[in-house]
């Protein structure tokens, strides 16, 4: 296996982008990444997308988007693992370069979610759960995470306010990200008073519905060095699955898939959680970030809530989490999220994160998950 580098990134200003189609959204981000990388060709392309069929009635994205890219009849591969589709697209591109099959691979993600109404979007997203044995009974994704939140609160005494502090912190970070969907400040009190969605979660505990795309370019490290451009090294790639239905898990208040993938990734990178300078994690709901930080071993089980409340995970804290604003503030076009996480790590590790720059970072981690944690992708990156 060859060492692999990320050398270019692209992303739109995410939001409710009525004027942009899926293909144009995607092509904007893809062209930006190609230009940013300074390459004149791409050997293959992967795209993570959860549900273009339900959101815009379009499948067959591998062909459609390779066609839009205009770089000839290259292999175009769409992959899906619900909200972890972007992370999976990155891993497939990584494996293609690491194995020597391809030299220059464009890893992308896209989701166009606002062409359907809220009910239809909720339905499309609910397809990531067990349709016959969860969705059939009227449970929603906020509802599934709300049940995890209540189990976590019962087991560890996690408080409503600790959940709210995660959202407030991520909005503070998003204020510093010019591409974030919701660049607005929210307070823990505001989160706690927000419209209830699924008790104990309110609307400000939930990531939004977003249109957006992101893209990154991967090449062998040897080529990146030759090109003389800023790059970061992919130090580890791990993927796990867990039971599709939440009720089949041994524990409802922890993420076994994240813990397992983290252990694999730390081993491959030769580091431990204490070595990380920062991490981009899947905060689809406030409770998710707390459970993920525990799964990554940054905090003991049950200590993620108090850590968030104490500012340990804030920009400038001991271990900044979601400097980009996370899914909560940056937005969550589900297929694009995993790729945008890699973009943030690239900016941080190459010192280009501007006002949200972490001081002198060396190791960055991305954690992207699908469903209630049934799919997990973790990548670790090292500064060049």
């Amino acid at each position, binding site marked *: 296996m060859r060492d692999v580098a990320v050398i270019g990134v692209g992303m739109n200003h995410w939001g409710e982008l009525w004027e942009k189609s899926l293909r144009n959204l995607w092509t904007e981000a893809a062209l930006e990444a190609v230009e940013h990388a300074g390459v004149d060709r791409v050997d293959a392309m992967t795209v993570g997308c959860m549900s273009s069929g339900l959101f815009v009635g379009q499948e067959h994205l591998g062909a459609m988007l390779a066609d839009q890219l205009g770089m000839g009849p290259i292999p175009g591969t769409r992959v899906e693992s619900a909200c972890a589709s972007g992370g999976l697209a990155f891993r497939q591109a990584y494996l293609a370069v690491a194995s020597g099959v391809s030299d220059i691979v464009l890893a992308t993600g896209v989701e166009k979610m606002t062409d359907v109404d809220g009910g239809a979007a909720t339905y499309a997203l609910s397809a990531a759960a067990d349709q016959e044995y969860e969705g059939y009974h*009227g449970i929603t994704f906020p509802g599934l995470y709300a049940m995890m939140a*209540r189990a976590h609160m019962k087991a560890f005494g996690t408080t409503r306010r600790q959940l709210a502090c995660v959202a407030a912190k991520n909005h503070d970070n998003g204020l510093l990200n010019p591409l974030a969907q919701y660049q607005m400040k929210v307070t823990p009190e505001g989160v706690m008073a927000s419209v209830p969605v699924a008790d104990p979660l309110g609307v400000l505990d939930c990531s939004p519905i977003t249109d957006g795309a992101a893209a990154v370019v991967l090449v062998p490290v040897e080529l990146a060095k030759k090109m003389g451009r800023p790059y970061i090294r992919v130090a580890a790639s791990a993927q796990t699955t867990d039971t599709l239905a939440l009720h089949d898990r041994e524990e409802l208040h922890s993420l076994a898939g994240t813990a397992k993938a983290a252990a694999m990734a730390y081993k491959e990178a030769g580091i431990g959680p204490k070595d990380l300078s920062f991490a981009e994690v899947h905060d689809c709901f406030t409770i998710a970030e707390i459970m993920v930080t525990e799964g990554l071993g940054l905090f003991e089980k049950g200590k993620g809530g108090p850590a968030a409340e104490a500012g340990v995970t804030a920009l400038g804290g001991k271990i900044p989490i979601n400097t980009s604003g996370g899914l909560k503030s940056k937005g969550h076009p589900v297929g694009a999220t995993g790729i945008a996480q890699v973009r943030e790590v690239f900016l941080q590790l190459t010192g280009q994160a501007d006002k949200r720059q972490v001081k002198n970072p060396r190791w960055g981690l991305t954690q992207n998950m699908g469903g209630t944690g049934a799919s997990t992708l973790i990548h670790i990156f090292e500064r060049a």
Partner: protein
Amino acid sequence: MLGPARYWREVPQRYRYEAAKCAKCGKVFFPPRLVCNKCHSKEFTQTTLAQTGSIETFTVIRVAPTGFGDEAPYAVGIIKLDDGVRITAQITDCELDKLDIGQKVRLEFRRLGKEGESGILRYGYKFVPVA
């Protein structure tokens, strides 16, 4: 939209609570599977779910998905049945603000909703608290 065949396939579980018990290690699966994820046996015997259990966690859905809009707010929980199987289902005939983890519940056969204006009526299990 739930087609009749897709609905019909799940009838043994939704109407009769049929589960599969691994003939080798005894683990109970709901819905039935083709291979045991504990001992890899492919032999099962048919069994019926326990009809009482307790609430392991729950939520109150305030923003409902398509098809459940008229029902909100309603409670959904993960119930641990007395045979050890966990299932997701609505908890009904209860005061929403009095629900709690650990509460004992009983399984009942209820209507869950209907598919659009002229679609099939959907039935299945719900749980109600027992005193």
